[in-house]
């Protein structure tokens, strides 16, 4: 399947993956982040159950302490 991740196309072998699987496959290890799938915010406790489908638009950004 193909998805858009931060405005860039990404391809995965499976038909669907969870948010946790995507983070593992992309080796995104920094924990403080915000993820939206098609505009819907996915809370951290839903990462292992939220499903990413073909064509989904994923927006992700990191949260850095400081302010």
């Amino acid at each position, binding site marked *: 399947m193909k998805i858009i991740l931060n405005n860039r196309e990404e391809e995965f072998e499976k038909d669907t993956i969870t948010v946790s699987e995507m983070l593992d496959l992309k080796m995104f290890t920094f924990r403080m982040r915000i993820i939206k799938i098609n505009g819907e915010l996915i809370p*951290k406790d839903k990462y292992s159950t939220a499903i990413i489908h073909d064509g989904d638009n994923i927006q992700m950004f990191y949260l850095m302490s400081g302010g």
Partner: protein
Amino acid sequence: MIFTLDSYQMKLSEIENHLGKFKVGIAGAGGLGSNCAVALARSGIGTLVIADFDKVEPANLTRQYYFRNQIGMMKADALRDNIHSIRPELNVLIHKVRLDRANIPSVFAGCNVIVEAFDRSDMKEMLIETVQGRMPQVPLIVGSGMAGWGNNELLNFRHIDESLYVCGDEVSEASDELPPLAPRVGIVANMQANTVLEILMKFQ
């Protein structure tokens, strides 16, 4: 946003009259919140809702909009005083509370835009999840990544969608070895204020 000739054809008094109709929430009155609030006050935002539970400390003066004679005051009180020194007519509503998932919707009820101005990343996450979950129609402007100095070219703006915007470099985390300093904190705080104006100038 593309500047057209039309977007410049508005006098300052007309801009102030327009911005005076709106209410903006500021979550945290530290480096981001104090500088952002002052920029919004100078621009003529009608009502600012400021939430902070901290006191002004000497170390805050390196980057936050407070003065030596305000050390020991509640930041919310001190910031209201400073805003009123600039624009006495502005409405400043202060909440001296620690924001959490339960009180955020009531503290910022009626706000047209909310500015995330916390220090800790776990608090930023909590606020974003709460506002996006409970108040999804209210645009939220997040600051992420502003520690250190230099690297102007990394300070970035991202329009995630109509309800979420991010200002900052998204990489430099504040620590003892990489402290937040006035210039970059001020730039990001003013990018957040600038985003508030961009959103509100489109509102009717």
